[in-house]
């Protein structure tokens, strides 16, 4: 009987992780493929508009075009962080693997997009401010938030997959999301030099093509962010299932530890 149980669970795990053709799996795979294609097309469209249609900004020059990917990358970081928050909260409440996988995928995307923000921003600042980095409130809070998600990913990578480690990581995931409103309101509360082109009360983007490029940037990074979160979450879920089956196989003496 134990062998039957193991067979059944392993078959399920292998089918799902290897993407074997179940009807539901095929539908999910097709939806994911469509998402990836849409993300790739929108990224190409954004690059085209930024390179060939958007006019050069009058005071900063061509370096201002970093903005059309820097801001959407920050938004995708928020997206990953929000997924991590809900995944972490769900895991603490329900304790199931899908919530944990969503939290892990969200945190990994938050780190990747956070790295994009924290490198593209200083390259823009080098031209606009004359320095790569300044301890501006928004820059500082953004960096601290990314460090929280780096801590989450490091914890999940090196501290094992025990219940305590996963709960501790979930607490970090919730703490990281608490930083998001602080980043957003830091400019208003504490001032600083970071531009407020979108949420400020100034003129904003002065040309229709500038608005188009930013909108396309948001669309492409939304699709890219969702595709990356889904792929990482699916991977984490499959890895958790395989690990579970491995443990059962070890317990029954079928494989060595």
């Amino acid at each position, binding site marked *: 009987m134990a062998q039957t149980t193991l067979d059944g669970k392993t078959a399920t795990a292998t089918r799902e992780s290897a993407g074997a053709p179940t009807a539901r799996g095929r539908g999910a795979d097709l939806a994911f493929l469509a998402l990836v294609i849409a993300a790739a097309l929108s990224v190409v469209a954004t690059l085209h508009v930024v390179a060939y249609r958007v006019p050069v900004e009058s005071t900063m020059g061509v*370096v201002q075009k970093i903005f059309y990917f820097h801001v959407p*990358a920050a938004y995708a970081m928020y997206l990953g962080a929000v997924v991590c928050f809900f995944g972490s909260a769900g895991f603490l409440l329900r304790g199931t693997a899908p919530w944990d996988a969503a939290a892990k995928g969200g945190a990994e995307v938050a780190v990747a997009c956070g790295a994009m923000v924290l490198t593209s921003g200083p390259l823009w600042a080098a031209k606009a401010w004359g320095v790569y980095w300044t301890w501006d409130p928004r820059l500082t809070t953004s960096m601290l938030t990314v460090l929280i998600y780096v801590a989450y990913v490091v914890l999940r990578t090196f501290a094992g997959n025990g219940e305590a480690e996963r709960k501790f990581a979930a607490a970090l995931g919730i703490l990281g999301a608490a930083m998001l409103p602080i980043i957003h309101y830091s400019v208003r509360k504490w001032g600083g030099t970071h531009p407020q082109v979108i949420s400020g009360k100034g003129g904003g983007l002065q040309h229709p093509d500038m608005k188009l490029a930013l909108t396309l940037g948001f669309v492409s990074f939304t699709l890219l962010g969702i595709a990356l979160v889904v792929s990482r979450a699916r991977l984490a879920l499959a890895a958790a299932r*395989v690990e579970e089956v491995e443990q059962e196989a070890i317990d029954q003496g079928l494989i060595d530890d």
Partner: protein
Amino acid sequence: MQNDAKPAATSDAASTGGAPVGTGATDFKPVTAGAPELQSGEKLLVEAYAVIWVIAFVFLLMTWRRQRALDRRVQELEAVLARAAAGAPAGKAGR
């Protein structure tokens, strides 16, 4: 002799934008009007876009490598289970 040396120094200074060559500098003056760009906007733009896409591709590469490792492990487990189901002694596979 002094009259011969002076025009040469002036000529060097003109070719280097004002700084006399071969003499110890006694002061540094900031460039004010018509200052050349200290940072090239084009270079910074290309660097920023390159960094963004390198991060994206490294992330995808890591996902792909993890998926491959997982697939290999699934194949090993399937082989062990197939042998066990066939009644043969299960060949033990390390993790």
